[in-house]
């Protein structure tokens, strides 16, 4: 059939991933099922529209930062202006599904994730529609490498974005994730501490934003679901967006769409900020730190009824010495398959110790008053009474979750024990936190908690963490003054 030009097996497998997944021969599938189902066998009988060459998309592709001309030229041995290289990419990728526009975006991955887009070049689809539709575009491991390689990119601080003397409006979506609201409060209190006149608002409409700096926290919420859909183009072009999402998520795509419009962004993760800079966005890092009296300064508070009513909670004693803390291990993270499997595999060692494993399953939107929810304030109380903070990544990404590891861990004197993380430089493995792969984790836990040497290691890292927090707070104070 292939010789006769009436069937194209590779085309068929590419177009219908369910056939490959079912491990069926493509020609068998076509004859037995596909033909009756009206599927396209390719060849001259093909009814599917061919991928059309869309040269009008070249400026949008170049603006996205996802086409890396130098990388592309070196990878495929072609020369030309940037626009010529994009044209070459568009023509070549129509024949070669594996051709990539740069080190981050993979056409093959995008096509597999979004089979409905296959009549369009994947990158064209993403920059024209997919990004603002919130389609996942990046593999987590590839994004990790992309960010880590961006070490030569400059990282700014918030001062580099704000006109001295201009007031600042910090915007967030009032119906959004309440953790993002906390971050909006933090941004406002930090800028206010730095001497800016700051307003924290959930709606900008009706305000005169002329000669005012605008910061949107979580643009994938405020500008997609909230009043930010009505931002005037002139404002949208200069907003500083605060990105809070990991790159492999659909939310990141929504956020990226907004960040590419203004090309000004802050991130709570320094590596992510570098990655954004590599995409041509002026990006800065704003570390979340417990400022005295601020939203992340949890201090000591009696545990709330929400924490204790339906849970067995040990008496919280706040001992001075880390090794006297009543909990050996704290885990905090919503439960997905990967985490459930990992915790089950650690069961035999965790069961020997005193643990607080907060691992709820969330099937719907999370509200702060859900009995399954534990607020940051309560978690900090447990963390101040736990020796180790166990961290299991939600997926394959090694993203360094600053909020979890630093704010909920190190700042509370609780030593993070985590799967390997992308090294962000400021907080170092072996010095401020302990790394172990899931395979190594049981033996590492037993060593840390069950041997004199291991307990000394906990004390050492705990002490380093204390010094780190003092240093970061000092740096921040200097920065604010």
């Amino acid at each position, binding site marked *: 059939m292939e010789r006769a030009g009436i069937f194209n097996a590779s085309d068929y497998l590419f177009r219908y991933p369910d056939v490959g997944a079912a491990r069926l021969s493509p020609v068998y599938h076509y004859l037995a099922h596909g033909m009756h189902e009206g599927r396209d066998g390719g060849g001259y009988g093909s009814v599917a529209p061919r991928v059309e060459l869309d040269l009008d998309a070249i400026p949008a592709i170049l603006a996205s930062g996802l086409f890396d001309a130098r990388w592309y030229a070196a990878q495929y041995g072609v020369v030309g202006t940037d626009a010529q290289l994009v044209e070459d990419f568009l023509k070549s990728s129509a024949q070669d599904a594996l051709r990539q526009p740069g080190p981050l975006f993979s056409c093959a991955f995008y096509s597999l994730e979004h089979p409905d887009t296959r009549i369009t070049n994947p990158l064209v689809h993403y920059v024209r529609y997919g990004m603002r539709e919130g389609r996942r575009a990046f593999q987590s491991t590839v994004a990790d490498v992309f960010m880590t390689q961006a070490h030569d990119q400059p990282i700014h601080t918030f001062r580099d974005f704000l006109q001295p003397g201009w007031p600042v409006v910090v915007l967030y979506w009032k119906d959004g994730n309440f953790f993002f609201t906390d971050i909006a409060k933090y941004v406002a209190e930090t800028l206010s501490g730095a001497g800016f006149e700051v307003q924290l608002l959930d709606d900008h409409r009706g305000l005169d934003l002329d000669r005012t700096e605008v910061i949107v926290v979580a643009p994938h919420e405020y500008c997609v679901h909230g009043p930010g859909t009505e931002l005037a183009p002139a404002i949208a072009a200069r907003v500083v967006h605060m990105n809070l999402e990991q790159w492999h998520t659909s939310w990141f795509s929504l956020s990226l769409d907004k960040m590419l419009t203004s090309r000004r962004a802050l991130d709570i993760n320094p590596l992510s900020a570098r990655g954004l800079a590599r995409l041509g966005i002026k990006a800065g890092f704003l570390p979340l730190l417990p400022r005295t009296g601020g939203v992340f300064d949890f201090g000591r508070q009696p545990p709330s009824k929400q924490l204790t009513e339906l849970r067995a909670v040990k008496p919280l004693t706040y001992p001075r010495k880390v090794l006297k803390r009543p909990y050996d291990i704290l885990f905090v993270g919503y439960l997905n398959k990967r985490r459930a499997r990992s915790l089950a595999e650690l069961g035999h060692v965790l069961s020997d110790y005193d643990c607080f*494993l907060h*691992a709820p*399953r969330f099937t719907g939107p999370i509200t702060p008053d859900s*009995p399954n929810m534990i607020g940051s304030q309560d978690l900090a109380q447990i963390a101040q009474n736990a020796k180790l903070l166990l961290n299991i990544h939600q997926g394959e990404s090694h993203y360094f979750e600053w909020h979890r590891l630093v704010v909920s861990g190190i700042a509370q004197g609780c030593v993070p024990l985590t799967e390997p993380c992308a090294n962000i430089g400021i907080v170092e493995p072996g010095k401020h936190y302990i790394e172990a792969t899931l395979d190594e984790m049981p033996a590492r836990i037993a060593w840390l908690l069950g041997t004199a040497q291991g307990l000394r290691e906990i004390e050492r890292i705990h002490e380093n963490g204390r010094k780190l927090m003092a240093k970061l707070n000092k740096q921040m104070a200097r920065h604010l003054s």
Partner: protein
Amino acid sequence: MITQQTETVYQSGSVANRVSIVIALYNYERHIAETLDSVARQTSRDVSIIVVDDRSTDNSLDTAAAWMRHNRHPQLGMLLLSHRENAGASIARNTGIAAARSEFCFILDADNLLYPRCIEKHLAALDTRSDAAAAYSLIEVFEGDRELFGAGVFAEEGLIHGNFIDIMAMYRRSALLGLNGFEKIKYGWEDYDLWLRLLESNAIALHIPEITARYRHHHSSITRTEQNSTNVLDLHKEMSRRHPQLRLH
């Protein structure tokens, strides 16, 4: 509470210890000794074991009796009862609960395992909370897909969509007696029914955020018997009839 007439096959020590571990046994000769070993290794010594054999057709009863004779210990109360007729796991559990004289009952299936600090941690939880009728922990699923059960607090928002709490938990015996124990429901889900009845009576079951026990996943786990897709539909109907607030899907 529906129970069955029994014969006492073996008895030693006292059944008046603070915790009775109630094990309904039916055709688990392969697993019962390992399960009992896990009970004997508990750090908490204030424990009695009550095994109710539900007319096993394999060697379960003899295996349990031999284990008890061999592991006899003055502190560990042991009681092995045999149903006169096969009655199902729920009734066997009720028989065990009725025979207990303890403050607490821990319900254990004959193929599952406890980690050594399981009872200690459950007792610590319930000792500090006289207002709680029961306590359950996270449970590790082993053999087959590794999973966690019990990941959530005892609240309607989770339980109306399906059961996520295994029966392997510690209950005040008074609470179980107050509810008339387990009901017999065709195809199972008596554990879910019990949790819902507890919830409806405004009782509290404390969530212990620790892994303390292991659930053996295999095709004949005691609470999963005969739950094929048709039966599950019937179960949904039956459970929704008993508990109209449910939103099963």
